[in-house]
């Protein structure tokens, strides 16, 4: 029995606001509502298996597929809308600004921070850092949780992403350091 997505009969999109109060644009469903049909978990798994097999051939592995959810949210929606929305990737810098994020260096990376993947200077993907392992003060391992388009949600090493998603190029954080000396 195919699993259907949220019933969009009356456009169930709810507004999403940044910390500043700015509205975060979602895809304007409009005419999409009457034209869309859902994808199934099997669809997502079938595609994800191919992507992972292709990555494996290139020597890149992932840690675990967290979810084959057929709900339609993307990498930005996973992080900034709790998996409730598809937010176009080119909105990411607007969100960073309105949510009080700042760019950090790779060396400052920690769990909860955001990785931006880019290709030809254009953002293609974002991921949430879940694990950073340091040895002797140097980062040895970074693991990221991210949603690969309309495919699965995957925990993966920092650089283990499909080539169309680009390379890890920027790191952003809204964390606040301790106020105590």
């Amino acid at each position, binding site marked *: 029995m195919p699993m259907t997505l949220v019933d969009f009969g009356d456009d169930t999109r709810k507004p999403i606001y940044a910390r500043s109060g700015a509205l975060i644009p979602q*895809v304007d469903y*409009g*005419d*999409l509502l*009457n*034209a*869309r*049909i*859902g*994808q*199934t978990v099997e*669809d997502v798994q*079938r*595609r994800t298996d*191919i*992507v992972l097999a*292709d990555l494996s051939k290139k020597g890149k592995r992932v840690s675990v597929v967290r979810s084959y959810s057929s709900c*339609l949210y*993307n*990498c*930005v929606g996973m992080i900034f809308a709790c998996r409730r929305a598809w937010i*176009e*990737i*080119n909105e990411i810098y607007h969100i960073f600004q309105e949510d009080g994020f700042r760019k950090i260096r790779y060396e400052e990376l920690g769990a909860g921070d955001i990785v931006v993947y880019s290709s*030809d200077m*254009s953002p*293609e*993907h*974002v991921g949430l850092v879940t694990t950073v392992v340091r040895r002797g003060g140097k980062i040895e391992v970074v693991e990221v949780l991210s*949603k*690969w*388009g*309309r*495919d699965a949600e995957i925990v993966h090493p920092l650089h283990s992403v*499909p080539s*169309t*998603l680009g390379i890890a190029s920027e790191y952003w954080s809204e964390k606040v350091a301790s106020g105590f000396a």
Partner: protein
Amino acid sequence: MGLHKYFRKIDSLEFQVQFSVLSGFSSLRRYFARDLTLTELIAEAMEDITQSSCSINEHIRHLLDRHGPRMNDESIAAYLYCLKQIDLAVAQEASQYVLNKGGVWWSVRMALHILQYEDQIKESISFSSTENNKVRYSTGNESTIDNSSNTVEPAKRFMFTKKEGNKHQIELAFAS
């Protein structure tokens, strides 16, 4: 074999998964523009626009009628993208068919993009003058063509047919 060698590649899951991982419609269009298979298909299709656009349109319908929208979402989006480069009128027709049949995500977004794009272009066209069977058209981008000499701006190519009286049917095809 014609375009069928491209159809086999584009219909494959391996082709589709390159784009199903993307998170933005502008990204999808950017990668379509760079994809070698699509570039070659478009180049070959331009050698016989009428036949090729018909062939691609029929293939879209075949995919939707036989396999349903779920199985070929990115492929259909790619074919619509190609049609937009080859023959905007046919792309519009195919887009409407996709919307009527239903699509999952990228095919629907591409269809809407094409239909809205076509509407934007029609709005920007205005008749500036008509004299002695010569008709000047100007677009929002200030390109003009002269009916008698059929010269066009390099960036755009128009096809139009003169009908009875002063009414002209405008068909638009854009080179890119």
